[in-house]
Structures are given as C-alpha cells and as structure tokens.
C-alpha cells in the first residue's frame, strides 16, 4: 500500500529542513482543507506531509505598528475577527468572512489560502481517483496534455489573464483583497527569507499553467504584511456567487478608496472570480481617481477593467457582472468614509 509519512514541525527551520530531507514528494499541510481535497481527487499524491499548524509564533496576528502582520498559519476565522482588521480594514475581514464556511474558516490558514488551487472542474475531475469519473485533460495537472475546459462548460472560467493553455480562475478571495492592499508575502526557505510583493506572487498561466506561484519548493509562507493606510477603513470586498455562502465568486471586487469630499483621491481595485490570478484593475482605478464618484462613473470604471476580457462560450456575463460588481463596491466603499 502507498505509504504516507506525517510529521510535525515545531519551528520554521525544522519545517524547511524536513522538507529538504523528504525530497520532492513532500508537501506542507496547514489546515488541510485544500490539500486533503486534492489528495482525494488524486491531484496531489505526496509521500510526506509536514504539518506546519503547530509552528510556534506562526499564528501571530500583529496590528500595533505601521504594518499589519499575519502569521502564515493564523486561522482565517481569527484574522477576520481581529479588532483592527474588523474595524479598520473591512476589505480584509469581508474577503475572509465571505469565503468558504465557518467550519472551513476555523481550520484554514491565511497562508494556505494563498496557495489553494483552482476550482476549474476539468482540473478537479479526471485525475483517476475513485471519487471522480472520466478522463479530462488539464495542462495544470499534466503539463502539455491539453485543456478540456477550452470548448467545454466554461461558465465559471476566467475572462481575464487566460491563455490558449488555461482559463482556470484563481479561486481565493483573500488574495484579491491582499492584491488591492499591496500586501507583501514573506517566505522562508533554504536560502533564507524573501519578501514578495503580492503583484509578483501569482503567475499568469501562459504556456506553463502548472506554475502558479512565485515560490520555490520547500519555501514556507511565514507571514503576510499589509502597510497600514487610511484607505483601509473606506473599503469593501463585494462578492457575487451562485449562492450566499459556501461558494466561490462568480465575480468579486476588493475596493479601497480615499475620498476628498465626493472626489476620489486614491483608489485600489482588484478583481476575483474572473481572472486567472488575483487581478489588480489599474485601468478602473485611473477612471475614478481625481473625479467625483457618481454611479455612472463607477460603472465606467467597472467596464474599463474588462476592456481586455476574452470570454468563452458561457461566461460572457462575467464581463458585465464584473463591471457592476466594481461599480457597487466603489459606492459601498465610498459610503464608509467617516
């Protein structure tokens, strides 16, 4: 029978060392809410799981200085209810609270969330596990094998950032909020610590859709940092999904603005559910900055975010929906100014 080693790491150093010793087939496990799912689907078949959910201090949530710092294994539920996050950064809190379910958020970590894999049904099905049926090609799962989503049921696929090889949506909500807030991902590995701006953390699929994250094997996400900004208070994460809980986004927008009266001084807008990575919508930001925010302008900004969209057969609605999500999110965020 296939064996599986399972070890706990008490420190970040130990985790990295265990990973190096285990060789290529090791994986970190935190809350396990995604990796176990992927193992059952036959997509991940690790020989060694290194449990990082007990690493001392890796669950710290620090909000005192001029950055917010979330330890890699801090729970989604705990970050969402940290007072500073809840009161001063609704975009962050809402992105967590509108994700998954309370049971999952009580298990899942904010570091693991960054590295969760796509919900593309062609990716999830057909890896030959007993829980699935059929054979569906996927370049992410099996580089170079082809993409069954092209020409398939693409209602939930991406319209931005796609390639001939892959149209899979980046699933997470939290990374979208972090993209709007210009977060930095701190990773620790054999070579030491690296700080990666979130804009550089996710890779476009291009012709290598199996490469999703700018992280090397064995590197551990130790923290996520967000520079404090007054824009945090005037922010929202607006998410439209097929049901009101326990569903990934059809289209979502993380928006934070700073207002001068009715005029927008700064705007940060990122999109989820519509793109192959958490998607910063700079074109939309340019439309609103310096102007007074009206519903018409907000919708114009929304449309600006999708000028490059390339919808497939069944997902063209995401273009209009996404634009309206941005528009509504801008209005909601602006109304939160005190």
């Amino acid at each position, binding site marked *: *029978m*296939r064996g599986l080693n399972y070890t706990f790491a008490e420190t970040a150093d130990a985790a990295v060392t265990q990973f190096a010793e285990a060789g290529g087939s090791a994986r970190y496990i935190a809350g396990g809410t995604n990796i176990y799912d992927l193992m059952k689907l*036959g997509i991940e078949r690790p020989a060694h799981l290194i449990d990082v959910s007990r690493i001392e201090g890796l669950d710290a949530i620090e909000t005192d200085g001029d950055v917010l710092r979330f330890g890699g294994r801090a729970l989604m539920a705990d970050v969402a209810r940290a007072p500073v996050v809840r009161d001063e950064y609704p975009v962050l809190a809402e992105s967590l609270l509108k994700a998954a379910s309370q049971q999952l958020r009580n298990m899942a970590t904010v570091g693991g969330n960054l590295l969760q894999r796509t*919900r593309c*049904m*062609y990716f*999830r*099905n057909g890896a*030959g*596990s*007993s*829980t*699935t*049926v*059929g*054979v*569906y090609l996927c370049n992410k799962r099996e580089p170079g094998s082809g993409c*069954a989503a092209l*020409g*398939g*049921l693409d209602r939930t696929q991406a319209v931005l950032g796609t390639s001939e090889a892959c149209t899979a949506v980046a699933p997470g909500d939290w990374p979208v909020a972090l993209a709007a807030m210009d977060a930095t991902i701190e990773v620790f590995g054999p070579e030491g610590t690296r700080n990666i701006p979130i804009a550089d953390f996710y890779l476009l699929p291009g012709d290598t859709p199996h490469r999703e994250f700018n992280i090397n094997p064995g590197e551990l996400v130790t923290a996520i940092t967000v520079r404090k900004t007054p824009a945090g208070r005037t922010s929202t994460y607006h998410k*439209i999904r*097929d*049901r*009101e*809980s*326990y*569903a990934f986004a*059809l*289209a979502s927008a993380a928006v934070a603005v700073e207002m001068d009266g009715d005029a927008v001084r700064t705007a940060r807008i990122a999109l989820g559910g519509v793109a192959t990575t958490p998607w910063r919508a700079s074109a939309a930001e340019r439309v609103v900055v310096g102007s007074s925010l009206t519903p018409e302008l907000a919708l114009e900004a929304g449309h600006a975010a999708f000028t490059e969209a390339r919808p497939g057969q069944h997902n063209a*609605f995401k273009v*209009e*929906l996404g634009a*309206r*999500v941005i*528009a*509504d999110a801008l209005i909601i965020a602006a109304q939160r100014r005190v």
Partner: protein
Amino acid sequence: MPAEVFSDIARVDARGKVLGQTQYGADMHLPGMLYAMLVPATVAKGAVSNIDITPATETSGVVRVLSLGDFPTLSPEINYLGYPIAMVVAETLEAAIEGAEAITATYETAPFIPLMDSPGATVVPSEGFDTGDVDTEFQNAAEIVEGTFETPAQHHNAMELFGTVAHWSGGRLTVYEGCQNSDSARNALAEAMGISPELVTVKSDYVGGGFGQKSPPKLQTALVAEAARLTQRPVKLVTPRGQLFHIANYRPRSIHNIRLTANSEGRLTAIDYDVVQENWPDGGFRSNGYHEDVARLYAIGNLRATAGDIYIDRNMPRHTRGTHPFPAGFALESAIDEMAYRLGVDPVQLRLDHEATTDIIVGQPLAPHFLNDCLREGARRFDWSRRTPEPGSMTLEDGTLVGLGVACGIFGASGSAAETTLRVRADGTTRIISSGHEMGQGIRTAVANAIVQGLDVNPDRIEILLGDTSVGPQMATVGERGTASIIPATVKAVQALRARFEELAGPNPPAGNLHQQLARLKRPYIEVTASELAPGQDASALEAFRTGRRAGAGSEYPGFTSMSYIAQFVEIHIEPGTRRIRMPRAVSIADIGRVVSPRTARGQMHGGVVWGFSTALREQSEVDPRFAGYLNDDLADYVMAVNADIGEVDVGLIDKPDTMVNSAGVKGMGELVMLGTAPAIANAIYHATGKRIRKLPIRIEDVL
C-alpha cells in the same frame, strides 16, 4: 372515522440523531469486515476490450477483485460513463481504493448521444391524451398564452450516500443499506443470488434521505453480496458521490411546450401541452405522466397532451422528489401567471375562480379538497393585497426591484394496503410492527403520535419497527404514500386494542395508564393486528403487501380521485446593480388532509420551500457533451441552497380530513411540499423585472 386534530409531539428520533447515535446502513461494522471500491468505466459507450486487474491483485491488502465475467452485471458492454467494470475488495478502505485506481482498461468506443439536443437525438412518441375539443377552443379563444419551458437534469443528492454492508451466515444473507423499498431490494437480491427471498434480510432502519433515488434496487447491492459470498466475510461498499452522479438515477431534463386559452369571459378553456424528456428505452420514468396531475389543478375542461422520449447514453433517469408535477407545474403555473396579466386579473383570483371539481383525466369527481383555502390563507399571511401588478412597479428605496409571485402545486394522494401489529405491555413498553421507511420525513413520529393520541401509554417507550424485512413486510415509501398508508392501519389497530382492553377490563377498569391497568389485570400484554385497504382494493392487495409485492393504489380510486394541494407565495428582491436574486420571504400553505404529525409535517413544509427554491435558482447537473460525464459531481460544485439563501418561511396546514381517501383522512405531502415554489419564484421575477424566464435554474445572468 377521521380522528380529532392531532396534537404536536416532538420527533421521536431527534435525540438519537442530535447525539449522532442513529445508525445508518454504512455505520454497520462487523468483525472481519472487508471494504470494497468500484472501478468506473472511462468511456460513455462501447465495450471493454481488455482489463488489467493485476496491479490491483498485487496491491497489498487486496483480497479479491471481481471483474468482467465474475458477475452478470460486470459485463464488457458499456452504456454510460462510470458503469462499474470491476470491484476491488480489500482489508482496508485505503487498499480497496488503491487497488481500484490501479486497474486499467482499454475500450472499443462507440458514438453516443449525451444530451437530448445532441446531433442524432430523435424523439420517440409515447401515448398521448385528448379530452374535450381543444381545437375549437383555440379557434374561439380570446387569449392564447404559449411558451417553451425547460427544467434541467438534477440529482437528488441525499446526505447519505449509497452504502451497503452484506453479510452471510449459514446460507442466510443480511444486507444493511439505506433504501426506500427494502422488500424489493430483498427480492432483487434473492433473484441475483439465486436463493429464496426467505433467506434474505434487508435492514434499512434509518435512511439518510431518499427522494426517489433509493427506491429501485441498486446496482451495487448484489455485487457486494456476491463479494461477501466469495470471500466468506462481511463486505462494505460506500460509493463516492462522484460515482453516484454517474451511475445512480436523477431527474431527467425535460422541455414543455404549453399553450393555454381563455375565452372572452376570462374563463380558462383549454390546454395544449407537449413534453419531451431524456430517457432510456424502457426507462423507469414515463414521459406521458407529466400532464396527468397538473390537469386536475384547475377547472379547465379541454386538454390535449402529447409526449415523447429522447434516448440518451447516460445513466437512467428516474423519479426525483416532485416527479412529473414539478416540471409540468413550472410550465403550467408560469402560463397561468402570464394569462392573468393578459386578462388583467389578479393571479390569485384567477386561480380561485377555477377551482376544479372534476378529474378530467379519468372523468370522475375529485374528492373534496381545499386548494382555495390554501390560496386565501396564503394571500392573507403574505399580505398579497399590497401587490401592485405592473412589472417593476414595486421597488425599495435603494432601487431594489421587488417581485411578489404565487403558484400552486398538486400531487396524487395514493395509498397502499397495509397491516400492523401493536402490542402494549404491562412492563411499560409498547411495540409496533409497522411498515415503511424512515428517511427523515418522520414516519416513526407519525406512528407514535397515532398511538399516543388513542392510548394512554408511555410516549417515550414505544418501539417502532420498520424498514427491516425481518420484522414484517416493508412497503415502498415512495410517491408520498408512506404515512397515508400506515397511519390508517395504525389508527385502526389503536381502536382495536382499546376495544380489546375494554372487553377484558369490563365495566370497572382498574386505575392507571394502560400499562398499569394491564399489570393490575395480570396481563403481560395485549396485542392486536389490524389491516387497512386503500379504496377499491380487495384482499389480494393485502396478500400482495404481506408478500412484499406492489400493493399501492390511487390517486385514481373507483368513483373518485384524490389529490394533495399547496399554494406558494414568494417575495423576490433583485438588486439594482449586480441583479443578485434574493428571497426574503415565502408563505406555503398545504391541504394534506388530516395532519397526523404536526411537527414533522411543518418540517416537510420548510424543507419543501428550500428544495423548491433550490430547484428554481440553484441546481443543475452539468454534463459535458463531449464526454457524457457530470462535471459538478460533488456537494461543493453542485450548487444547492444553503441557509444563507433562505429568508423567512411561514408555513401552514389546512388540516381538514379527506373523508374519501382513507379512514384517517390522511393524504401525503413528501413530494407536494416542493411543488409550486419554482413557478412562484419565476412569476415573482417577472413581476419584479418584466422578464419571463422559462428555463431553470434561473441564474444571475438571466436577469443581468
């Protein structure tokens, strides 16, 4: 003699369920038990040309592999994706899975038709129906409403998967499995194993949801029994949900063309109705059943119905909660709403004005019923009078569109011959050998309530045996007939037991409750057996019941037809920007005859609204036609309603007995409760937006 209004008692099995103590089929653990996993075919049609099971037999822990030729159902011919071509049996579940995943096969593939609108799909007509003079009514019509309506393939997705534990002992086979028809499971097993049914026991004490999917014998059961026979050890198989999507039954997609006429006086005069559905040749769900129940909903005297099947190369569609009246009712009740607009009549009033008294399908009276009471009570609770009919005329301050919609549902009130044995003991306990299946709907609570209503016994010491073929015949619990069949027999048994006691005790009975009275009379127990037939049945029906064969009757009885009725009112909000659809409020009022278990009946009503909402706005089994496979084959991707979707739900029951259908006046409700909500929602969306959506599920892109 229908009983008085029944009082409310708590669910008798709630405590065990909340504590996680209730045992379902797959919870059974037997010493030495082996675990099985199926190997699904990876093509939709063709034949297995070669299968290599060696990697499985070489997997450590694997005890046995059943492959092509080892059992009649393990045949090389493949008619749908996922059809099991082998089963691996191992010491552990992990070894069984590993072995199953290691098996490879090659196939000769054949062309297939995955969907009813795929190239090459053709309609095979089935028998139609014609009454009155539809053509003349169309010529004379003042208004004609027509539309093409579509409802999708949907899977039942009960929480409990298909779980089977099979165990042989001394030539006898015992199977633990959640099913809605343990007698037919037993007969199918006996036939497959080539043994007498007396040697087979099927135990299905609790079922974790059936909804029709667990009615027919399952493909897996005999295979597991065979594995247990070959290995001489108990074997368990729990089929993963992804496989169930592909091999278990589901609601077929169907397309309905409906034309409805009204004359110049505003009377509805004729329906011209055509339906096609996906099916199998000799499939288990007939296409010419769609028009039957809905034709009885209103007084509309002329009906022409045509129907057809389109054969597809997927697993076999069958009954799913709401069965034919769900899709047909979506079509009819949407058309009625549209007609109300054409006629300038309130849609509640139009329905009230067309109360039916005749079953035009059979040409006989309908039993007295109370649909109009449902409509009036619903309208009152919902405050229907605040509705301004103009589409888009009701909005909230923030621009949210408000839509108020109404629709009705109807389902046949069938029944079955049944027999029950009731024993009350001096030691404080009561035992009843009952019949049926407890799927969460509350049949045990209904039986307990019928007992405590009529007898002064300890309410928490009643043992209700059912779902188990070794205690007595277990009737199919389908088509919402469980309670309506067993309760009349139970009420009769209660009355007989009381009469027996009075005879025994004479004019001066001792004091105390029934147990204490028996003790004082020095009688360890008294026992009665009572049976009841459905109207028009004779002794042969009881014989059929006793031998585990079909004993059902209705909804058409000699001289009358009996139906259950429901009226649904929903309030829909559509956000101005993203057009998100929400349902803040629903009111659901039903006529189910006498309510014998108020608590569980209300539970059914709430669940029915949720299910109705889910079928209207959420659920669709998504098939990729290139593979004929279901892609959203788990509970994360098959989108069903969640708590956060559902607003306030207010339910009510008319609680007047149907004096014709059975001695207790009880009609069923399990299917009925989910009817009407989908068209009420579609009608409310029209009211909010002016857009008539004729295809389910309605999604955000449909109103954007």
